[in-house]
Structure formats: C-alpha cells, structure tokens
C-alpha cells in the first residue's frame, strides 16, 4: 500500500494488497495517518466527510479480507493541530 494511500484512495488496489497480506498469514493490520493532515480535516480538527467515507471504505476492505485494524493518529506529536 503506497504512502499516500489515504489521500489518493484506490479501493481496488487496497483489496488486492490486503488480500495478499491476509494470504501471507498476517491476522491484523496497523495503519493510520502520518502526513498531509490538511487534506483530512479543517484547521479546527473537524474531518471532512470525504475523509470519513474514505476511512469507511478502507475499513470495509480490511474486514472483507479478515483483517482487524489498529488505526494510528498523529505521527510524532499532535502538532498538526497546534499551529
């Protein structure tokens, strides 16, 4: 899954990648948001509707492939919403 997977969602590719991960014997996936916060939410921290729908698509794809999700928020410190 490429680095900008959330900013440029491609559920077809996600489905292939997650199926491959599951087939390799892994039984969960850890993912999250690392960069590009301004693409996901406004300066007040409110996520855009497209953000929530993208996440829903991701979670449904993970579920389809039998992978529970651990979703990480904030890469190093929560400074993205402190500027």
């Amino acid at each position, binding site marked *: 899954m490429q680095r900008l997977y959330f900013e440029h969602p491609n559920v077809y590719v996600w489905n292939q990648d997650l199926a491959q991960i599951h087939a390799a014997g892994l039984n969960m996936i850890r993912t*999250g948001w690392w960069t590009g916060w301004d693409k996901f939410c406004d300066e007040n921290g409110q*996520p855009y509707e497209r953000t929530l729908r993208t996440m829903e698509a991701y979670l449904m794809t993970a579920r389809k492939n039998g992978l529970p999700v651990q979703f990480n928020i904030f890469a190093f410190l929560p400074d993205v919403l402190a500027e």
Partner: protein
Amino acid sequence: MNAFLDPEAVRRQQTLVSALATRFRDIPWLAWDFINEPSISQHLWTTRANNDAVELQSGTNGSTSATPTVPSWLRAWNLPASSVSGTVPLPEDLDFTPRGVYVGHNSLKTYDFYLFAQDVFSQWVHDMRQTVRATGSQQLVT
C-alpha cells in the same frame, strides 16, 4: 502553541478524535492508536524542552496545587534561592549531555524533566481516551 499542553490545541485534537470515534464506534475489530513515535517537543525523538510559555508554566512553576513551587524545586535540585528569579528555567541541551555534570550542569533538573514529559504523555493519552469513551466507544485504545 504547545501540542500537548495548550488547551486550544488539545481541543482541536479532541474534535478530530471525537468525530472519528463517533462515526466508527460500533466496529469491534477497530482499535485507536495514539501517536506513532511520541516526542514531547518539536525536537523529534529526543526528550528536550520546547521552551514555550505553556511548557515553562506547567513544567516547574507550580501551575497546579499538586505541582511543587519554585522554592521546593530549588531545594530538590540543591540550588540557592538566589540562582533563579521569576520562573524556573527548563533544562537546556547541555543539561542533557552525559558529560554536562562535569561542567557544572545539574542532572537532577534533567531527571525531573523526564518525569514531567512522561506525566504530560500520560495526561494527554488519558484525555484522548476519555474523548473516545465519551462517544460510547468501548474499542481498544493503544
């Protein structure tokens, strides 16, 4: 703005966390994971002070009744009262170096900053966890 201590920053973070948890709170196989590689300040992957006003006030200067006052810090660090006027300064880079003590820097202050940083992390995570729980989510928080 201090990412962990400024109330406005924390409010924005809680807005984000609350919105996500509200939308997805009923998914039992989803866990919320807070901060990938936590750093206490802009100096990533090191425990160093930001030296901003909020941190200075919270760290060593008696911002709450549970926080020691300036005179008690000076006693704990074995420093004369005359060495500080106003707020107690946060440790500088040289204080953190292993050989800092050889040139007169005070490792006790550094030790207390490490404890302070852990308290800040702990309180922040507690607040975020409460934000998740307030949505009705019983999901795992890591």
